[in-house]
């Protein structure tokens, strides 16, 4: 039983529709008035990320089989490349990309261990392509 990996056939998520929010690990103290106060409940917090991918019919089949069979309708965790880090060039202090010895820019790599979010993926048609919007919960 190995942890599943996000299929590499699927494209990167769209810029529009990306949203990331940290789930609140705090516990609010109930006060009738005055400023709110919190205490921490957990050491590590999950993050909720909303993603949209724009896929062809063949890629839609890949996504469907990954969601329905590999993660068993979103109940098993999986590894997924972090779209905001993975594949981005590494920059130095002045913002220039750091180059490897052969002149190719060094790229960052980051993997999320995540679950599908609380709402199941939503699929809409746009022309001949499909738009699948889904949420993932990034585990700490």
């Amino acid at each position, binding site marked *: *039983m190995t942890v599943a990996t996000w299929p590499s056939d699927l494209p990167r998520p769209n810029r529009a529709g990306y949203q990331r929010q940290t789930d609140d690990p705090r516990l609010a103290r109930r006060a009738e008035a005055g400023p709110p106060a919190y205490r921490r409940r957990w050491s590590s917090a999950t993050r909720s990320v909303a993603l949209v991918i724009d896929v062809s019919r063949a890629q839609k089949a890949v996504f469907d089989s990954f969601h329905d069979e590999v993660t068993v309708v979103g109940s098993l965790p999986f590894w997924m490349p972090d779209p905001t880090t993975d594949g981005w060039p590494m920059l130095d202090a002045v913002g220039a990309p750091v180059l490897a010895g052969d002149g190719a820019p060094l790229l960052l790599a980051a993997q999320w261990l995540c679950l599908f979010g609380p709402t199941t993926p939503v699929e809409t048609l746009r022309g001949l392509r499909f738009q699948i919007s889904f949420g993932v919960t990034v585990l700490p």
Partner: protein
Amino acid sequence: MTRRVSLNARLAQDAAHSAEIEVVLILVEHPDLTAPIRLSTDNGERISVEPLIYGTRSTWRGSNPVTEPFLFILASAELPSDLEGAPAEATIVIEAVTGEVARLLRSFTSRATVHMAVVLASSPDVIEYEATGMRLMLAEGSAGEVTTSIGREPVEEESLPGLSFTKDRFPGLHR
């Protein structure tokens, strides 16, 4: 009853805003167990991916923080009570995610020994409060959760054998 806690814990309790988390560590020992069970109520660190396990590393009661982490459970813990005229009783409510929990709790007849400690997540080796040598007295559950009560042995309920006035024991009666 006064109790000594570390300065950091006291400052955290008195502060208006504090980032400290109090973690309950639980250690269960039983003659049938090859190794004690170590549990924690905080998911400080991802210990393994397959299976997905979180936990806390501490040296409490001689645990090796590298190889013997305290594993995170979905539980709420209640520390031993301080009531007049009643033995101290702690409660752990375990989320019964599988039926295995109930089966395990019904599978032994002698009482397990439970130790509990409170630490801060930032200093897991400094024990703020400790209750050791308690016994697992009762475990009752519903479909969703299992409530285990932990206290001391009920010494008041020990039956004392009454003596029968036989010739051997009380020869003066049978003269």
